[in-house]
């Protein structure tokens, strides 16, 4: 008999609505509210020992105290698995569920939650097993049996298979498994299905790029401040900020104030995706054309060059990180009145 502790917010815990969102952590015996339907879905295989009820605002604004109270409860109850939610599309509730499941994990207790795939908490708690649900409580009856099934598996200490098979949201975790047929057979089958218009499923998900509407052009660059960015990994010699050669999570800015050229020996290219000897021994400007930009500045064709350039390494850069860099760089440049950017991408 798998022993379960269930986390609910103030609404599903029967305390009240938004006016009770400050409800502090409360532990009740047995199943409460939708926990009773969860218990029904578990049948004889599991029992809901206790229900932890927390107000959404309390769990969010007093996160540390809330988690400390949940920790004390879990340490006392020692369940086999923690189930949180379903939170559907409620962001604060989803966030509380994610945090509770993460805490359970830290205590060595498997945990599973459920919410709508677009719940903002999904992106934050990607490593938590999350069963997808409808956007509202209309989906409760559909979600609970799926949640119960995974709760029992986790509670028994069983390893879950791939997300698509087990019915949880992909967590971005890749595991090596042996497949019954070699890759060339599977690939050929996939290709034949595709050519014949039969349904086929890619084994590796291909991320679609977001279409960003183009920014309007500048009528004239005279008088305009221009920013320079490179993903060619050009940094001051010595790589003072230790920019890695690939899979980077950072960008850095370096001063080019008063510099007309980039001298060999004063800069280095740390990009790990191509042979950098040409940039390093012949001309660093090949990945940051400063000398020509300065000539344009002197000639009045552009107003001025922003005194810092931004450097990162475009080698295995995760799209989410690249987006974050772009947004941060744009924020700084916009604040400085920069109206256009020249970016060298290797």
């Amino acid at each position: 008999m798998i022993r379960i502790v269930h986390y609910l917010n103030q609404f599903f815990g029967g305390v009240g609505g938004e006016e009770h969102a400050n409800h502090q952590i409360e532990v009740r015996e047995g199943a409460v509210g939708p926990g009773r339907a969860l218990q029904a879905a578990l049948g004889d295989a599991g029992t809901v020992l206790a229900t932890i009820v927390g107000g959404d605002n309390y769990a969010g604004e007093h996160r540390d105290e809330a988690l400390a109270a949940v920790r004390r409860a879990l340490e006392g109850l020692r369940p086999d698995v923690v189930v949180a939610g379903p939170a559907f599309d409620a962001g604060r509730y989803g966030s509380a569920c994610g945090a509770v499941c993460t805490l359970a994990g830290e205590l060595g207790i498997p945990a599973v939650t459920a919410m709508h795939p677009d719940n903002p908490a999904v992106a934050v708690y990607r490593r938590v097993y999350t069963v997808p649900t409808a956007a509202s409580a209309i989906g409760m009856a559909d979600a609970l049996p799926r949640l119960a099934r995974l709760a029992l598996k986790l509670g028994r200490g069983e390893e879950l298979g791939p997300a698509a098979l087990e019915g949880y949201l992909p967590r971005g975790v890749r595991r090596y498994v042996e497949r019954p047929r070699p890759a060339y057979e599977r690939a050929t089958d996939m290709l034949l299905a595709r050519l014949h218009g039969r349904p086929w499923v890619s084994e590796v998900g291909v991320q679609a790029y977001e279409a960003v509407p183009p920014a309007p052009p500048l009528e004239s660059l005279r008088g305009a401040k221009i920013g320079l960015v490179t993903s060619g990994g050009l940094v001051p010699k010595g790589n003072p900020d230790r920019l890695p050669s690939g899979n980077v999570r950072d960008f850095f800015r370096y001063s080019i104030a008063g510099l007309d050229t980039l001298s060999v020996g004063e800069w280095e290219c740390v990009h790990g995706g191509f042979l950098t000897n040409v940039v390093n021994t012949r001309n660093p400007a090949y990945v940051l054309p400063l000398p020509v930009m300065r000539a344009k500045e002197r000639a009045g064709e552009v107003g001025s060059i922003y005194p810092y350039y931004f450097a990162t390494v475009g080698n295995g850069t995760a799209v989410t990180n690249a987006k974050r860099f772009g947004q941060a760089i744009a924020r700084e440049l916009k604040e400085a009145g920069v109206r256009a950017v020249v970016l060298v991408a290797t």
Partner: protein
Amino acid sequence: MGIPVAQISAMPVLALGAGANRVVRGVRIEHVCGDPNLSPEADEQLMTRIVEAALRALRTPVTGPTLFEPAPAQGAVRV
């Protein structure tokens, strides 16, 4: 509203495919904005033509991913 970006890339097909809206063709990955095999003078002129294509891109309205080619070298003959 965003800032227009002219992206100089040695693999413009990749940049366009990723959705970059103003892409300028560069030379090679190892030397995007020039060519060490040219004389220093020709190399600098090449870098100038590439940068000028980037500046032109920044002044050009586009509706989606668009490739901008640097102007050909003086004396270049189309064959």
